């Protein structure tokens, strides 16, 4: 069970949240996007061993979306930041070192 520090409600157990997949995937301008790029936007996601930027929504609480950096090896949540904000620098190797 992860414990996630909702920026509005404080630390709450994972079961109160909805996972929203990889963060920072902006919807491209459809007319300016070819089929391959559109498919990439729809279907392709990174799956890093290490720090992963992802979206969460506090479904059973404030129902607000936010971004988090989570280490997929240790499950440590190393940063939480608002939607639209750039990905912060996180200690830890994004590619994973073990």
């Amino acid at each position, binding site marked *: *069970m*992860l*414990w996630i520090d909702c920026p509005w409600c404080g630390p709450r*157990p994972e079961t109160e949240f*909805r996972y*929203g997949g990889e963060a920072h995937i*902006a*919807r491209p301008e*459809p*007319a300016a*996007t070819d*089929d391959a790029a*559109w*498919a990439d*936007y*729809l*279907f392709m996601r990174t799956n890093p061993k290490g720090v992963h930027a992802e*979206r969460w*929504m506090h*479904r059973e609480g404030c*129902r*607000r*979306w936010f971004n988090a950096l989570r280490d997929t090896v*240790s*499950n440590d949540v190393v940063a939480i930041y608002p*939607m*639209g904000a750039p990905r912060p620098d996180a200690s830890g190797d994004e590619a994973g070192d073990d």
Partner: protein
Amino acid sequence: MRFRLKEGGRIDRTQRLRFTFNGQSYEGFAGDTLASALIANGTHLTSRSFKYHRPRGILTAGAEEPSALVQLGEGARTEPNLRATQVELYDGLTATGVNAWPSANCDFAAWTGRFAPLFPAGFYYKTFLWPASFWKSLYEPVIRRMAGLGRAPEAPDPDSYDKMNVHCDVLVVGGGPAGIAAALAAGEAGARVLLVDEQAALGGALLGLRHHVDGADGAAWAEAAANRLATMPEVRVLTRTTLFGYYDHNSLSALERRTDHLGPRAPAGTGRQRLWHIKAGRVVLATGAHERPLVFADNDRPGVMLASAAQRYVNHYAALPGERAVLFTNNDAAYEAAHDIVEAGGTVGAVVDCRPEPAAPLAPALKQAGVPLHIGSVIAATHGTKRVRSVTVAKLGEGGGPSSEQYRIYCDSVLASGGWNPAVHLFSQSAGKLAFEEARGIFLPGQATQAVEVTGAANGSFGLAGCLAEGAAAGARAAQAAGFGDGTAPPIPSSDAPEPGAITPYWLAPGQKPVGHGKAKHMVDHQDDVTAADIRLAAREGFRSVEHVKRYTTVGMGTDQGKTANVNGLAILADALGKTVPEVGFTTYRPPYTPVTFGALAGRDTGPLMDPLRRTAMHEWHEAEGAVFEPVGQWHRPWWYPKPGEDNHAAVARECRAVRDAVGILDASTLGKIDIKGPDAATLLDMIYTNAFSTLKVGRVRYGLMCGDDGMVFDDGTTARLGENHYLMTTTTGNAAHVLEWLEEWLQTEWPELKVYCTSVTEQWATVALAGPKARDVLAALAPDMALDTDSFPFMSVKEGTVAGVDARVFRISFTGELSFEINVPWHHGRHLWEALMEAGAAHGIAPYGTEAMHVLRAERGFIIVGQETDGTTTPHDLGMDWIVSKKKPDFLGKRAWSREDTRRDDRKQLVGILTDDPGTVLPEGTQLVDRPGRPPLPMIGHVTSSYASPALGRSIALALVKGGRGRKGETVHAAPESGFVPCKITEPVFYDSEGAKRDG
């Protein structure tokens, strides 16, 4: 109780308890476990083994027990596969050994042992393969009946279970000397401490030893410590509680057994067990160690047990393991077990030590007591059938094989010790890494991933003094890390236990014949009947990964997760592969540490409390009318309303006719309703729906399809414009929450600049659909001030007004094809409105109709149901609904995906109608469609999505998704239900009133 000592032990001799095991009556004392009481009565044979049905006895005295598994109790309360070593005895207890028929003593299936060559490792991949049809009908049922362990209860569980959630600064797991010291240190520092231990009382290994702490008997010291902990307000101690799961972020789960030890005397109203969900700041694991069995020929015969188990039965339960024991060891510490037996008045026939030059400190004392020592020797065979009667001891020769110097020694119990394995299960579950220590042949906790520290024997400190010191230091450190105290450990109590002494890892003792030859079995995994020969076979067959060997041989895959088997099995595998143990690696421990009853995991969330039930304002009326209910999400909706003597078909047909010929009334309150407000509401809807809503006039209603950005339909419904910046959206019943989340997600993540609020109002408005040619007449009687003619109140518009004396919103929309009004009133007026409509409609023959009639009516008219005609891979074009896809809007969700190659294919599955050649045949929904009959496998061209008997058409109708179906109208295809091939024709997916002539009445 022939083997009960006259004095000593920690049992209560004033309380005699009667119990029945395998049909025989016994007596024991309060404080016994089922295993200790059986041993006190001289019974070692408990059950039969999993695969070969070999006689099995009690190997251990604790949670690691692999073989003495019992079926406890009878009827609804029976519980399978409990470890006899952990079942506390109570008066009237009844139990039987598992996997034996008719009994462990006379087991019918023991003949399987004689066919052991048929069941080698991975036998299910090799034998019983032909003929193929025999597997399902014969081999598998027979093998499953003969293998398997106990029986699950068949009646509902009469007990209740609770769940607890608790936060603590320091969680200490294990109430032995290290755990007690840690809890005392952390508790005295002021931290909020939770100490859990699986035994009935604190003390851990101390309860089975004769050592002293601070001058007191170990158990007395533990009791005093428990009393001290009880005075600390921030400390909670849970005994009879097994911490079974260590999850992420220091979330842990424990099972507390509250009444199991009381049997039928359990107080009424007390939950049987409690599941504790623990969130800990720091965790101190003081989980101790498990003694490792030695692997030797026929080492699974009843009477063979761990040395420490025998020691515990003598010291804790005052029960001798038998008349005459032989100790087989590779380490000094095990000599203490033989010593304690001699001290207690028992007889030790010999000590067999595989080491060439052991120097155990207790050896001289044993020699003086007349116990012969056989050094550089092994037990090469055990003799007897259901109990060991003697052993053959062989001096080891050059190269480690048995020499010709052999002795037969009479004994009825064998105490075996291969050293100790730290209980690193929970640490491993926490994602901590394990490190192998060559000298003692043990896995130790390595790098931790979470805020956890391992201490005492679990950390490889097998001496008592070390446990006490390490535990206190760990407790103080954990408290400090949580913000309490300065990390200084309190004074360490003194103790009189000797250091554990020397050990030489020893993995496989040779028998009289080479391993795997002859009848003798070198048992590694007692629960799954995995032998050393099986592991070597796997290695010979090319298995290299320990994970593969585990799954192929099933070593460590029993309910005990190989607590006694894994390290031995791994070392034997490493030897067979010519590798070191660390090179071979180690399998991962997973929760639960010991099995957990489903009842505890379910807690109170059973029956009606399992999931909330949502009822509409008219629910009681439906119940009173005898409606049959259909679960839709969490809602219960009337399915049909059978009249006396009607079956479901008759009821549905009557309800359909009422709507087509007169008027019907449907409770549509469960449809999702979302109130959408704000200056950008129209902009949002234009992006969400495939058609335009900014062009919708106030007071008008439009049907819309919602797609994901992948172009696939995921919801539909009507949305009304109530004001310039105010819309009311309806969604399908089951998808309401999902659609609201969908809107919120886009608003918060992609279009935060849009000023829109979305609010669920599903439960604010009760909704009644009034449908049929007489609908206008019925409504007119209740809404005299509302103009209902087609010009004043056209199709797809909304009016606010008064219906049946209450404020109402009335929508002219139709899901049946008939003239229809959907009347919304505040929820608490729902029943009033419903009854008023029933009364007003009585003269017109009004009939309530349920969801089944609704489905038939909409299918006749060719209206889709999202989730039935669609499955997440269906586009609006596949449904033939191009008319609802805007050509003018530059962008909306789904649009871009339709120009992708895959969504432009001509052979996509498209919605069509299906009419069976035989009008009486109603195809099952989901039936596959093929071009022509034949022998499977056949190319499948589509499937039936909806199928009904249509009262309006007097025949069956169906909707289907068929590859390239729109171009195949009029062609004959074949449906393939289980009964055979059914010829049918592809048609338009509209069967009734395709011109829409009836919608205005």
